[in-house]
């Protein structure tokens, strides 16, 4: 479904998704929906803005997602609220699914989720009986070691209530970054070519071999989150990674367990960084290639609801930067695989012809209609794209049927313990984006929020530790520690802490665990054990933070009047 459809849903189940901080303009649709009478069920351990205006807030214990989802399915089935006709006509595997969810009564889920059984029932009833019902989910689902199972669990809910194939229904992952959808669309994935065409399917591979004129590997590649392991600990010589070409990313800030990431970058034989600003990864790069930025080049982004939209050049780059595509093409050419493109449209045209779902999305149409939501298969101007998927319950499987997929809940990997009695989850902050190389260099956004960031903690926990708002605290896990400011709030539960990952000093990824979901390879950013310590000498801490900040800025090439330069 599309973002504008959200406000017309009868019911919204917002699961592990905090639109107000990650996508304010999507949150706006939720607010408008509420004004139009939309029922909101919000599953989030924090009182997010959505939770605040929700009809039912399922304030679950972090890491209990699947238990809640399965319990809702259990209620829907046991109370006869399922859409049996839809199940019969459009799905498979329901009976096996029922066996899995049988034990997930609300009473069973209550001690796991910390949500009263009756509240789970109420939520399930509202979701199942209000049409159309839409599910939005975010990183609160994905950044767990049990992530894909939960996505499937949410799909199960939509399937069993027939909430697929029409406007304002279905399930939508709200992708965080501006072009994360696009990077996937373009096949920047170890298992698929552009247009979600699997590298292990021979016919597809043959198509690409033919188009590109070289034989291609039939082995699924290395996911990014495996890279530190593949550099540092890989036993099999031919799987070990020796060169790392990093393009528009900063793993030394954004990835979990930063200590390990740094070690990996340090040990990697050859690191190429291609970016617009100096960043922490740059400190380990052997070569730095300066690229033009958004606003300095042309291209197409895909937004969270599969919409291709144009991004245009606003100003001329000042300096010796080149567009990313050009740099890559030059290297390729230099390595004996010539790439010659005059502009992005040429590249685009090559791409869409290889991807049936995108074939119709020409520059011309994107210009004319302001954007095209894929699938758009036909180049004729009549095919304007697809606002929502699975129209009329026809799914993109061979027999057009959706598959139920039930799994048991398991707890997060690293639980609270005596030494680290609290939990840490990473979250977003509305005024900063990603690793902050862009927003941190914007005056007003920098002035609104700056280092060392905040740790959100329950007011009672703060009172117990005698922590005041704004006080600097030390937060530790078994992997590392950082210093940040304490933000007492009643929006989070006792025992839980939340931090945003863009800070250098309040760098929560020093603490996070690199444990991954087995399918998506997403780290468990949303759950690790931590401890908060009071810092008695606040004056020292304030000075220390300032010194650290100046030091890192100096390393990043900023003249702070002191410290080492890069």
């Amino acid at each position: 479904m599309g973002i504008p459809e959200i406000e017309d849903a009868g019911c919204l189940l917002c699961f592990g998704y905090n639109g107000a901080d990650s996508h304010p303009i999507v949150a706006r649709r939720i607010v408008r929906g509420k004004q139009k009478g939309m029922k909101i069920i919000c599953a989030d351990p924090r009182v997010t803005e959505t939770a605040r205006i929700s009809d039912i807030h399922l304030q679950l214990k972090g890491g209990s997602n699947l238990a809640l989802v399965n319990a809702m399915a259990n209620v829907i089935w046991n109370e006869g609220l399922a859409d049996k006709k839809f199940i019969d006509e459009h799905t498979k595997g329901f009976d096996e699914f029922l066996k899995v969810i049988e034990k997930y009564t609300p009473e069973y889920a209550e001690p796991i989720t910390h949500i009263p059984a009756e509240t789970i029932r109420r939520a399930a009833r509202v979701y199942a009986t209000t049409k159309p019902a839409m599910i939005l989910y975010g990183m609160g689902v994905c950044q767990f070691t049990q992530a894909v199972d939960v996505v499937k669990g949410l799909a199960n809910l939509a399937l069993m209530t027939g909430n697929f194939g029409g406007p304002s229904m279905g399930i939508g992952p709200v992708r965080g970054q501006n072009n994360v959808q696009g990077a996937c669309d373009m096949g920047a994935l170890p298992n698929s070519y552009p247009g979600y065409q699997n590298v292990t399917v021979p016919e597809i591979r043959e198509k690409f071999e033919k188009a590109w004129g070289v034989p291609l590997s039939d082995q699924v590649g290395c996911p990014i989150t495996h890279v530190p392991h593949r550099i540092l600990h890989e036993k099999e010589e031919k799987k070990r990674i020796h060169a790392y070409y990093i393009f528009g990313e900063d793993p030394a800030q954004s990835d979990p367990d930063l200590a390990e990431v740094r070690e990996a970058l340090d040990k990697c034989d050859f690191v190429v960084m291609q970016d617009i600003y100096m960043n922490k990864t740059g400190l380990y790069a052997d070569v730095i290639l300066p690229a033009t930025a958004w606003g300095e080049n042309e291209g197409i982004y895909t937004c969270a609801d599969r919409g291709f939209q144009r991004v245009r050049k606003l100003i001329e780059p000042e300096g010796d930067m080149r567009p990313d595509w050009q740099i890559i093409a030059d290297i390729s050419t230099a390595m004996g695989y010539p790439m010659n493109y005059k502009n992005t449209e040429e590249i685009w045209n090559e791409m869409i012809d290889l991807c049936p779902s995108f074939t119709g999305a020409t520059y011309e149409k994107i210009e004319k209609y302001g954007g095209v939501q894929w699938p758009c298969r036909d180049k004729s101007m009549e095919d304007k794209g697809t606002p929502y998927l699975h129209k009329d319950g026809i799914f993109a499987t061979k027999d057009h049927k959706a598959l139920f997929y039930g799994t048991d809940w398991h707890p997060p990997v690293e639980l609270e313990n005596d030494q680290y009695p609290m939990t840490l989850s990473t979250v977003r902050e509305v005024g900063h984006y990603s690793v902050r190389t862009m927003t941190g260099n914007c005056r007003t956004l920098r002035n609104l929020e700056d280092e060392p960031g905040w740790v959100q903690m329950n007011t009672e926990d703060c009172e117990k530790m005698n922590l005041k708002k704004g006080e600097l605290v030390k937060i530790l896990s078994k992997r590392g520690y950082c210093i940040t400011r304490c933000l007492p709030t009643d929006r989070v539960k006792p025992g839980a802490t939340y931090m945003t990952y863009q800070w250098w000093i309040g760098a929560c990824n020093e603490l996070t665990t690199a444990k991954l979901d087995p399918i998506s390879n997403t780290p468990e950013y949303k759950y690790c054990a931590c401890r908060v310590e009071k810092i008695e000498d606040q004056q020292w801490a304030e000075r220390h933070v300032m010194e650290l900040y100046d030091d890192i800025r100096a390393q990043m090439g900023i003249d702070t009047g002191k410290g080492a330069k890069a």
Partner: protein
Amino acid sequence: MNYFVKGNPDLCIGCRTCMIGCVVAHEGKHIFEVDPDSYSFNPKLHMVKTANLSVPVQCKHCENPACMAVCPVGAISQKDHCIVIDTEKCMGCKSCMDACPFGAINMTVQTGKFQADGTEKKVANKCDLCYGFSGGPACVRVCPTEALTLVTEDELGDAMERKRAEAARNAYLETHPQE
């Protein structure tokens, strides 16, 4: 009657676009080209987030303003439907800050101005309804969820009149149920 901007907690998502909008409106567009420490980042409205609400709070432009009453140097005055602070006159005594029951006034650094001992000069800072700028209050303009509105005398008067008429009709219906 003075006008005022009010936030609606039902619509606000706490994103603070209004706060930056306020700074940009008052400091001018040149701030996008200067050292971020060289201008004063003073939003004149304050985002409040509690367990059950998010909403910016700003000056109500009271009809009998306590801030104006306590100011010892006459730096606060009423001008064209709003209460404004003359930062030239203000000496930062914080009496108004203490007097305001809404917490709408804070103290802010006046960039580039210093006291005799070289320390920063700070003055009272509060919403002036973008007095003197075209286009009305910036916060209202930039809010992505239309959570802020400028309340004018006419609007408030109309609303009261409508409510009174409604109340009268209801009272009438109570005594004349057949109609």
